[in-house]
């Protein structure tokens, strides 16, 4: 059971940068990604700020070396997955038993939306190519095929916690000796479907979001992809690990299809379970990358669960969604890369736009970027629709 699973590298594309280095620079410069919509075509483009990846599909397809009519979800995925693999220095991917476990929530919906414009007025209308890769799994396969990965391929979709669950499943594949390496994380492109869906729930902020601030009124959607490369202990000699995936747990809130329970039951159980697997106590955690969407409901539930588990030893914490927006199926992957990098370089990420203490909580998020912190263990939270709650714990050794 206890084969160690290491993080050998990572890659990110998001609203604050086309690669991990650009993401890191944005945190240092306190440069957040929310702007007026530039690439997504929506009637709401003036109303809701979003954290788009700052490139059109032509540019992304050039970067990804894929046809330009490919779903944006796949383009983002391939760019980040390639960066992740390259960062490990492991070389020729065909030399290893590799799995690709990629989460997403929208699949090829960006193209399906366009298809439906023609299809609804005429059942023979719309070009079939636009729906060929509608399924979430189809997006994963486009990327796996481009990278030459065949040993194990899977797609997970549990709303906002999807990519954290991809890391868990990936770690189990390694522990069960099914593969030696798993590229695990998630991807999601902005679509009208999700933008309008979240709008009907009335949880989109018309201003840049303010996670864990008492005046918060909602989230901003973002897009992107993030992957870590999980590597079995038997390949440790070939890598320079950033961190180890030491604990993880998944629990269900079982309270409401889209809202968190007031006491954050699922959040609490996920964090507690992840600590138990890692063999740690709450005071061992040096930093928490919060789920921190900026909705009234999430931040109070998550905060109360943290208070219950961690009081009185509160680690540094922040929501990087204040920079990247909520990237849904990608968020757990992007934030796992941030968490692993935090251990590698002692980073505590800032929580942008925090000004007002939440009255329900005795702690406040970190507001400044700092590096060189002595971090031994960090936690990353991903909670979401369907009651799905997941926490990951990364350790330096």
């Amino acid at each position, binding site marked *: 059971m206890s084969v160690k699973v290491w993080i050998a590298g990572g890659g990110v594309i998001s609203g604050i940068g086309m690669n991990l280095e650009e993401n890191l620079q944005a945190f240092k410069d306190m440069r957040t990604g929310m702007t007026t919509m530039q690439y997504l075509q929506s009637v709401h483009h003036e109303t809701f700020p979003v954290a788009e990846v700052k490139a059109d599909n032509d540019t992304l397809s050039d970067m990804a070396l894929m046809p330009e009519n490919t779903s944006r979800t796949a383009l983002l995925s391939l760019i980040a997955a390639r960066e992740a693999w390259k960062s490990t220095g492991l070389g020729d991917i065909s030399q290893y038993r590799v799995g690709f476990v990629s989460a997403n929530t929208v699949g090829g919906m960006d193209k399906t939306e366009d298809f439906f414009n023609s299809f609804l007025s005429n059942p023979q209308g719309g070009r079939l190519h636009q729906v060929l890769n509608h399924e979430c799994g189809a997006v994963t396969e486009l990327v796996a095929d481009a990278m030459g990965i065949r040993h194990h391929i899977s797609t997970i979709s549990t709303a906002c916690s999807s990519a954290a669950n991809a890391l868990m499943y990936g770690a189990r594949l390694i522990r069960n000796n099914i593969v030696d390496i798993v590229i695990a994380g998630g991807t999601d492109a902005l679509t009208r479907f999700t933008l309008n869906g979240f709008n009907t729930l009335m949880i989109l902020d018309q201003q840049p979001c303010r996670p864990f601030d008492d005046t918060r009124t909602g989230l901003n959607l973002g897009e992107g992809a993030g992957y870590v490369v999980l590597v079995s202990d038997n390949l440790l000699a070939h890598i320079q690990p950033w961190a180890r995936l030491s604990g993880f747990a*998944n629990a269900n809130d079982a309270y409401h299809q889209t809202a968190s329970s007031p006491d954050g039951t699922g959040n609490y159980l996920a964090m507690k379970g992840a600590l138990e697997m890692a063999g740690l106590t709450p005071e061992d955690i040096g930093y928490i990358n919060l789920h921190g969407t900026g909705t009234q409901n999430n931040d109070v539930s998550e905060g109360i669960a943290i208070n219950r588990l961690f009081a009185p030893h509160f680690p540094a914490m922040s929501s990087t969604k204040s920079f990247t927006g909520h990237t849904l199926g990608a968020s757990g992957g992007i934030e796992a890369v941030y968490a692993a990098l935090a251990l590698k370089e002692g980073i505590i990420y800032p929580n942008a736009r925090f000004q007002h203490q939440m009255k329900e909580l005795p702690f406040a998020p970190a507001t400044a970027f700092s590096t060189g912190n002595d971090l031994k263990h960090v936690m990353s939270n991903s909670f979401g629709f369907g009651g799905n709650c997941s926490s990951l714990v990364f350790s330096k050794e």
Partner: protein
Amino acid sequence: MNIYINGTGCISPQETAQIGPLFSPLKEYEQVRLQTVDPDYKQWIDLKQIRRMSRAVKMGVGAANLSMEEAGIKMPDAIITGTAYGCLDDTGVFLNKMVSQEEQMLTPTAFIQSTHNTVGGQIALLLGCNTYNNTFVHRGFSFENSLLDATMILREGEAKYVLAGGLDEITHYSHQILSRFGLYKKAPVKTMELLKSPDRGTIAGEGAAFFVLSPEKGTHTVAELAGISTIYKPLWEGEVIGAIVKFLEEHEVTLEEIDLIVTGRNGDIAQDDIYEEVAAALFPDHPEACFKHLCGEYPTAIAFGTWMANKIIAEQDVPEAAMFYGTPPAKIKNLLVYNHRQGTHHSLILLKAC
């Protein structure tokens, strides 16, 4: 660690939600799209909620409950769902309104119920179940991945009962679109003649099948889930044949010890070719049973096939409607399910009678 199937539940185009002998009575159709025979969902779900639930959610909740009833458990230690398409009906409703109303005056219900984890979330919500909950959405591997995740979690030793299943629904839109890809027969075909039909295309189907898996046998346990494996985009038939040989070796079963193969033939001559190749190479004299003429083709149809395989072991007989080649063996100990989805996703599931 042995992993046993302690309970199963299935909602399909056959009368599978009823207790009784397998496929008795048999439902026969002459159409290219089979729909589930719905049980009375009120036994599990409040009437007010039923009206708002899509068929995908209802069949998932129903099959999950049937399997827990058979296993005699009230609360699983994990809920793992496999669905390639997710909640297509609600996705279609929201997409239609969003496009036709130009992104105005939309309501949240369809969006909320459109996410792929709606079924797993609803099962947890109705049970008040706070444990591990995951949803796999990988095309023809969705169900297989959920079974594999279940076995890995059970081997860790803390969970005692894992509820794992697969489901997919057909909707008006999805059937229209998939038909345009040429997946289905051009004219209605009798289901009992599907597997002998001489041309391209199959029939569409849908359904849900759930399983309660445990390291401990229950009162209704008849089989062990001895192995599960997937092969992605094999380069040629030989790779599949080699993978089957290796799979059986790993699970210490010889070809001769396989009493029955259950294959995913779907009546499309191009897609059924590989089953002929595999049978010719490895199982030339083995009896073969099939299931897609009974449930239709869909990405998680193998969940129905696995459910049927477990029932065959329970009854120690193969219903005539399911037999494809040979005669039912006198004793059914080892049963191999081999399925592929459009040539890209090949799966092996080994059940052993216990």
